[in-house]
């Protein structure tokens, strides 16, 4: 059998081995946890920095967006002002034309004709009376050199072209209005999309911070695990050791 000294030596040896291995493992674990804590804290700091930069950029873009919206409002007011001017011009034209049509005095009509076609001072334009065929009546007509009539023809052609241009411009304005409406709808959808992303990001960031906090707490104070062997295991191990030494 083993002497007391032999058993004592063996026990001391086993104890030293257990302490050495345990100490080494504790050191390794401590080093590993410290590295993980440092990494987790650094990542959280990085995330906070990124979040702050993102919030700053969002604030900057939101301010720019407000400026653009204000510019759009100003342009829309300008459009309304121009539309009111167009309406006013149309009403003035209608009123002027009605007055012209209602004019009775033939000399006034002749003078307005000269003025309209830049023929003022032309003495050969005048109201004369000409016989009505098959009747004793005479009719007042405006006598003027035949080539002057060309001006009324070109004026009529210009008026027709102007009306066609105006109609086409109205179509272009209408199409531009449609494009503007579509852009507004698109912008509204973009805003909704951004808001959805914002909500998702904020939620994810908050969840990350919370999870990281729990993770750090776990790393700093890990759950205690009872690694001490039970009495039964110790007794078994002790007897097993004696038995092995006795062989």
């Amino acid at each position, binding site marked *: 059998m083993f002497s007391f000294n032999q058993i004592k030596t063996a026990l001391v040896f086993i104890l030293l081995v257990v302490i050495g291995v345990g100490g080494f493992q504790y050191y390794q674990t401590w080093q590993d946890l410290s590295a993980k804590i440092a990494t987790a804290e650094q990542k959280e700091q990085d995330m906070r920095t990124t979040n702050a930069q993102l919030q700053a950029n969002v604030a900057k873009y939101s301010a720019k967006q407000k400026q653009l919206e204000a510019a759009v409002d100003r342009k829309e007011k300008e459009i309304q002002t121009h539309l009111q001017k167009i309406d006013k011009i149309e009403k003035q034209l209608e009123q002027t*034309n*009605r007055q012209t*049509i209602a004019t*009775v005095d033939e000399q006034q009509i002749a003078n307005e004709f000269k003025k309209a076609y830049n023929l003022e001072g032309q003495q050969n334009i005048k109201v004369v009376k000409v016989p009505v065929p098959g009747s004793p009546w005479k009719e007042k007509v405006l006598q003027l050199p035949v080539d002057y009539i060309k001006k009324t023809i070109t004026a009529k052609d210009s008026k027709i072209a102007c009306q066609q241009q105006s109609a086409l411009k109205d179509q272009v304005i209408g199409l531009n209005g449609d494009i503007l409406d579509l852009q507004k709808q698109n912008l509204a959808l973009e805003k909704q999309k951004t808001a959805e992303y914002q909500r998702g990001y904020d939620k994810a960031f908050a969840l990350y911070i919370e999870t990281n906090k729990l993770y750090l707490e776990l790393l700093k104070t890990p759950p205690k695990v009872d690694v001490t062997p039970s009495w039964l295991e110790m007794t078994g191990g002790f007897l097993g050791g004696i038995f092995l030494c006795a062989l």
Partner: protein
Amino acid sequence: MATLAQNFKLLADLHEDTAVLIQSALRLIDDNTNTKVTLKNLNKEKKTVDFVIEAGSINDLKQACDYKGITIKGSTLSV
């Protein structure tokens, strides 16, 4: 009884092509006859106007309208 100016003013509400033709006929009658015509009941959509002979003969109006290419139907003028 409407004056020439009153009739012209009423006709100014019609399309100018129609208005000036009727005005021209009225001026022709006014310059050459003693017939007096008063216009009323302007219809912009139908481009017509009713007339009343206040003095003189309707034949003067018919002759002037025929010369100008204006249609008389009953007491209504149209172009």
